[in-house]
């Protein structure tokens, strides 16, 4: 068990800058997730920590020890791969025993540890099978077992759930989180699935094009996205963003959508720049059947009921607006509706840079 610290770590593959200089610290026993779209550098980051890639610059510390120039085998980490990377020619038992044999543990202890892990992950009945005789979920558990059997200083997990079907994925999500807390082992987790990141992590680093956009608790990232991109990437359906102007009206400052000037919001901050971007999450928009002053009229494009709530896309002068609402009576397609935003739930971003403005 150990903290993990990156100091200015970067990686270039030829002319391609896969990871820009990145510094961050993951504390002991923390569940820390790298979240981002494919090609954002999250897997590269994990492989750098594992020692499978050598950083172009910077230092990596595990605990107090600088491991930048250590081989993977000397870092005492365990990794779960996206495709599980089980040894296809070995039985489950042999797969679990392999990292312990590499450590030259006595036979008795190897047996004891395998049994312990098999019990914890419900692998006892599968020990003499080979990977190809297992389902995806079972293979996944073996891969997990091979990681925990060693009692490593930290776990590295590269999209370990992405090859499972949706139901199993959600089940494993919970089990993995519980397991990590029970074992108390520092975990670096890589995923492109923001829901996975939000539900499992203590903290998340959101990556884009090799650079960390924001690092914080799931709640922080959701409630206070540091820029427009994070706001739109985290959350389904994505945040609605409009271009707007700020103007004084009487004593108050109001924001007016450029594409739909009739829509006005009271500004959450006293002195916004004249031109800016306004972001509203789909669940913070209310749908009205009757016209209201300052409301944005629109025509229902599509309604997607998802059980407890519905996702409704509405065509407006300000573009397609996504609304997530628990509406009792769903609007019909092409019905005209009126939208207002919940007060105090606006996100303001600078128009040029997309950076967050205000609290």
């Amino acid at each position, binding site marked *: 068990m150990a903290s993990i610290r990156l100091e200015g770590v970067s990686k270039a593959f030829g002319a391609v800058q896969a990871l820009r200089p990145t510094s961050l610290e993951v504390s002991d026993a923390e569940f820390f997730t790298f979240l981002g779209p494919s090609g954002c550098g999250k897997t590269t980051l994990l492989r750098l920590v*594992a*020692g*499978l890639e050598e950083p172009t610059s910077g230092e990596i510390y595990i605990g107090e020890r600088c491991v930048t120039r250590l*081989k*993977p*085998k*000397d*870092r*005492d*980490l*365990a*990794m779960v*791969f996206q*495709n599980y*990377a*089980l*040894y*296809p*020619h*070995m039985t489950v038992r042999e797969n679990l025993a*392999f*990292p312990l*044999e*590499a*450590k030259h543990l006595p036979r008795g202890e190897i047996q004891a540890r395998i049994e312990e892990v098999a019990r914890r992950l419900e692998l006892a009945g599968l020990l003499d099978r*080979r990977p*190809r005789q297992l389902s995806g979920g079972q293979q996944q558990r073996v891969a997990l077992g*091979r990681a925990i059997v*060693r009692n490593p200083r930290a776990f*590295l997990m590269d999209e370990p759930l992405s090859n499972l079907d949706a139901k199993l994925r959600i089940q494993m999500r919970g089990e993995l989180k519980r397991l990590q807390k029970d074992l108390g082992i520092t975990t670096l987790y890589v995923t492109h699935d923001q829901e996975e990141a939000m539900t499992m992590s203590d903290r998340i680093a959101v990556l884009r094009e090799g650079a960390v956009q924001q690092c914080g608790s799931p709640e922080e990232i959701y409630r206070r996205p540091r820029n427009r991109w994070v706001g739109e990437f985290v959350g389904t359906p994505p945040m609605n963003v409009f271009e707007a102007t700020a103007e004084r009206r009487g004593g108050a400052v109001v924001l007016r959508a450029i594409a739909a000037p009739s829509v006005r919001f009271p500004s959450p901050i006293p002195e916004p720049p004249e031109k800016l971007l306004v972001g509203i999450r789909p669940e913070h928009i209310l749908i009205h059947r009757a016209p209201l002053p300052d409301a944005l009229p629109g025509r229902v494009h599509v309604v997607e009921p998802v059980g407890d709530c519905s996702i409704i896309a509405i065509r407006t002068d300000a573009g397609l607006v996504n609304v997530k609402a628990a509406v009792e009576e769903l609007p019909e397609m092409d019905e005209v509706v009126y939208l207002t935003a919940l007060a105090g739930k606006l996100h303001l971003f600078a128009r040029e840079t997309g950076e967050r403005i205000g609290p």
Partner: protein
Amino acid sequence: MGFQDRGVGAALVAPALLLLAVMLLLPQAHALVLSLFEEGRFVGLKHYRALFAGADPVRPIGNTLAFTAASVSTSLILGFGIAVLLDRRRRAQRLVRSLAIAPFVIPPIVGAFSWKMMLDPNFGVLNYFLTFLGVPMGRIEWLSDPRLAMASVVLTDVWMNTPFVMLVVLAGLQALPRSPFEAAAIDGASGWLVLRRVLLPLLAPSLLVAAIFRTVFALREFATIWVMTQGGPVNATYVLSMDVYRPLFLYAREGYSAAVGFVMLVLTFTLTLPLMVRLYRVSIARA
């Protein structure tokens, strides 16, 4: 598959099987019959007895087995080693692959003749270089010393056939997934453990294919050895294929030659069958 479909399937492969039977089984059967006769008289197992327990100190079976074992094992180890070194070194790979293929492409007779000249005790290049180590020129009789001749022909055969092993193994290596090796590296495995427990088992199909081919070819090797030593000195490199050739073409003892040929066939099957069974099992296990 229904019975009817099966009938159709059998009918479709029947012509090919028939052709195979005519081309393969009939000549073998003929050779088997031939091997029991001498000058038109039935002599039973006489030729076989002569081959296995003849008064002649010639040991073509022993020589063939020794040659095969030495050549196949050495070329497998070397070919495997070179392939592993080349794997992941793309640029070196292109160069070495085109260079290393040369011995494999050169006609065996040409290659063997070149080696014969290089190994010549008096004007060969090998002994020339050995003079720098203080060995007087002409001292080492590579091909005419009975203790060295077998090693010399094995050396030549290894030189010619290592590229084949290398190419097969390299292709196998490149088809292997990287992730089990990365997993093993993170699992803390030493290079030796990875080689023994991960690389060799995963590469087993390629190694077995190379071993089967090499064994078949080494067992029937003729040209290389014939060009270099003609089976000498004192029959030190006299192998089974020569025991087919010489009695037949020099003394017209077709019965004896047929017997030797049949023994070669049995030997080839006996030696490669376990490898083929193993290959079949490995392939099934991976499928």
